[in-house]
């Protein structure tokens, strides 16, 4: 997708949080990317690290991308599971009354700062 603009948004949030916490240096950012979010983890990390170089308090920071698999929760059997393909069907009971419980997110989880 837009790894460059997403990386910019992540850095903006990190810079604001850093300032709000009265800290001076960002070490690491953890983000969670759903398997269906259409984001390439390596590409995002590369863009993040290149863009961080231009910002003194952020230079050298690393981006850790946790890929979250697609998970569906079944409204019939109550189970939660990872379907082998992106299909909205419960792998346990076969019901299609399921909802996505993760796998679409694009979230900043936490920062490590100094």
């Amino acid at each position, binding site marked *: *997708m*837009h790894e460059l603009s*997403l990386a910019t*948004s*992540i850095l903006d*949030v990190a810079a604001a*949080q850093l300032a709000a*916490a009265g*800290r001076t240096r960002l*070490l690491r950012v953890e*983000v969670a990317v759903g398997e*269906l*979010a*259409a984001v390439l983890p390596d590409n995002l990390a590369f863009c993040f690290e290149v863009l961080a170089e231009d910002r003194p308090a952020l230079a050298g920071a690393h981006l850790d991308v946790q890929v979250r698999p697609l998970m569906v929760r079944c409204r019939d059997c109550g189970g939660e599971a990872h379907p082998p*393909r*992106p*299909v*909205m*069907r419960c792998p346990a009971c076969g019901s*299609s*009354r399921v909802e*996505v419980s993760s796998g*679409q*997110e*694009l*979230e*900043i*989880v*936490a*920062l*490590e*700062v*100094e």
Partner: protein
Amino acid sequence: MSRIVVAEPVLKANDLVAARTRGLLHDAGVFSFNMMSSPGSGKTSLLVRVLEELRADYRILVLVGDIQTENDARRLRQTGVEAIQIVTGGTCHLEAPLVQRHLAGRDLSELDLLVIENVGNLVCPAGYDLGEDCKVVALSVTEGDDKPEKYPGIFLRAQAVVLTKTDLLPYVPFDPAVAERHIRDLSPDVPIFPVSTLRGDGIGAFTGWIRGRISALPRAR
């Protein structure tokens, strides 16, 4: 060293603006949908037909996003409906602030229906909430019946799917049953509307769905 828990969407700024737009549209009693598809699947031609059918009964505004040119807005305006072109200048999808800017200062209570035609793209538009009620995805029969399987993100979020250019079915190796199976794998209960914009087949079923959604909304408060 210390850890700060953030737990915020990367697109939080977009999502906040979208939520504000959604609130304004709901307060004004406006139904809105975000029309998405790959380039050339016939979104604009479909919308021209839809506007021709609905313009006598509803007050409609169309926002149409493209990387360049006013061409689509010009085509849509020929129906007599107001259409505003959003030229993104390179961005391959619409974002909530762009939509908000084009609605700012308008009296939304003068509208019943807002149609947002996104930039042709099956990947990026899916990730950006614009503040719409529904995402509608068009898939043309010339694209291949496995498109939903290849682009699950957008079909997963679709609340209606329009299968366009069905008049070409005799000439292309597209199996509507296969396409439907792939769509249902991702969105089991989604309504699917086969249409031929050229011949007018199926347009009434799609506009009937839109009419139903408009009348299901609480009127302006």
